[in-house]
């Protein structure tokens, strides 16, 4: 039995839809396609126009804030949820269900629901504010709030997913350890800080890496909710790539933008495999 034979089907598809496209993207970023279909080598021209493209920088910065806004909070919430539902709390099954449910819902569907929340004046949020005498607010139409609104929604969507990983990790922790700490006189908070949390570090890392990757991948909601607006205030890199490639039909520039995305993701990979995996304690 030849191992390569077993690998073959997966390898062919991976080559065709991951490795070749990566290389092709890099190659295309150095060319432009003329209207008549011929390609021309333009060296770094596309990169220069990218550097001069304010929308690109805006998208990049947005991606950064989006990641910063969603990742720490959703991880912290996930941990809290996991600790709660790991206990013999009344209604534990229901709580697990409640926290986890958003993650199985399609982003597209979720975006529809949240879109209504954020609708000015008669949306749910403004109705609630109205009860307290506040006026309507154009949540998604105002550059200062649009990102925050998307971040809240994504946290809602993602936290439950990460919770499951924490829950799995918590269940693998021996209860002995907490008991030993209790016998030694440690408070619950101390035990969490010094024992539980450090031991969950591999999970935290795994979840964080996933969250970072997701923050580059999640754009479905933009299509429904903001189309990147107003004035690009909610554009994310991948959405911009989509726009450039398919709406503007400029695949050379899209390739250039994709290269940036690839570099970012590879950096994440390098950090994970090259550095963190070595430093964090695995059991």
């Amino acid at each position, binding site marked *: 039995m030849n191992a390569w034979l077993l690998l073959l089907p997966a390898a062919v598809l991976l080559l065709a839809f991951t490795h070749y496209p990566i290389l092709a993207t890099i190659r295309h970023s150095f060319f432009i396609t003329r209207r008549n279909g011929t390609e021309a080598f333009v060296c770094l021209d596309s990169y220069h126009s990218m550097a001069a493209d304010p929308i690109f920088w805006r998208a990049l910065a947005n991606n950064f804030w989006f990641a910063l806004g969603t990742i720490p909070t959703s991880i912290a919430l996930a941990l809290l949820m996991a600790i709660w539902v790991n206990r013999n709390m009344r209604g534990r099954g229901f709580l697990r269900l409640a926290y986890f449910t958003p993650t199985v819902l399609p982003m597209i569907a979720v975006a529809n629901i949240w879109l209504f929340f954020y*609708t000015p004046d008669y949306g749910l949020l403004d109705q609630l504010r109205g009860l307290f005498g506040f006026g309507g607010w*154009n949540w998604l139409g105002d550059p200062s709030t649009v990102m925050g609104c998307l971040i809240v929604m994504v946290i809602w969507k993602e936290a439950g997913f990460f919770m499951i990983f924490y829950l799995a990790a918590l269940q693998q922790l021996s209860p002995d350890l907490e008991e030993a700490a209790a016998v030694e006189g440690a408070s619950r908070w101390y035990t969490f800080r010094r024992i539980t949390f450090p031991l969950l570090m591999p999970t935290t890392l795994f979840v964080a890496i996933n969250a970072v990757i997701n923050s580059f991948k999640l754009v479905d909601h933009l299509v429904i909710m903001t189309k990147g*607006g*107003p*004035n690009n*205030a909610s554009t994310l890199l991948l959405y911009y790539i989509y726009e450039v490639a398919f709406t503007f039909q400029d695949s050379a520039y899209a390739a250039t933008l994709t290269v940036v995305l690839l570099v970012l993701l590879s950096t994440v990979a390098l950090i994970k495999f090259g550095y963190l995996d070595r430093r964090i304690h695995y059991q």
Partner: protein
Amino acid sequence: VDLTMYYPVAVGGPVTKIIDDMVSRFEKENADIKVTAVYAGNYTDTMTKAMTAMKGGQPPQLSVLLSTDVFTLMDENAIVPMDGLVTDKSWFKEFYPAFMANGQIDGKTWSIPFQRSTIVLYWNKDAFKEAALDPEKAPATWDEMAKMAKKLVKKDASGNTTRWGVEIPTTGYAYWMLQALAIENGQKLMNEPGNEVYLTAPKTVGALDYWVDLSRKHNVMPTGTIDWATLRTDFLEGKTAMMWHTTGNLTAVKDAAKFNFGVAMLPAKERRGSPTGGGNFYIFKSASPEQQKAAVKFIQWMTAPERAAEWSMKTGYVAVSPAAYQTPAMEAYAKGFPAATVARDQLEHAVPELSVHENGRIYKFVGDAVQAAVTGAQKPQEALAAAQQQADRVLRAYK
């Protein structure tokens, strides 16, 4: 013959149902032609789909796309002119020339008007009455609109606005609205060959200034962006007393309004004016000769006066030919509902919609500038200057 057609929907009402119904009637009359009508989203989505499908080697044979997509479609070598496909060119003359304007370039006719519009002003007569304004009289000038709007604003006890005076949408087709304002201010936005835009012209800036002032100075329009898609609902919910919107929404508004409303031409500054809007039929180059023939047949059927009238009544779009307005059904309808002809009447003041090469990109630049201005992120002047700069960069290749 099998035909695939992509079409967009940008207005309310059961549009897909109407199209499906018309298509099936056409198929019944023409048993040898089968048309698959694919609803592909809004105009941008549909254009995206059509372009993407073409590059992927599976383009539709015909499509309804923005009349202004013509340069882009020509640049992409996607479409064929109609001239060679019809035996009797007098057909082109049956349409309103204002609607043909966008589609006729270099003496060739590249598209046939279908769901065409102008921007009109909808006003809530009940609100006017409440504000002690004449419910039958819409504002005729910018100043009047601002003044009346001020009276129409309603606040609750805690000072929160519960009704705005006027709303002009700033997402979706912001460039369209800007163009309307610019024209009224006496400024055209583009040149004939579609390779220049005039965003920094003082009068263009003035148009945007007025727009921004409505919210920031006169406080008659909400700040932040106003969503194209939900504006109609706002109007129907009474959240605004007036709105600027496509006439394509007329029937949807008529069907849902629980109050009396009127429709008027857009108010004037230096002049009255509105760009035309909406979608035309295009035939794709890659279609086989029989398919192209069949497509023409389909287009002719769809735009024939009875169908144009039917379509206009069911949606609110302007019927594309004068003949349609002479059909008995349309005449009866217009009599009972005079608003139905306001958009057509406005054609006399209308100009072709902003149509340039790489129109998708240019629209985004203009839209971004409008949004930057209305959200207060930039002064209209700066915002438009930035857009002009980017547009120049893109259009340089087409000079």
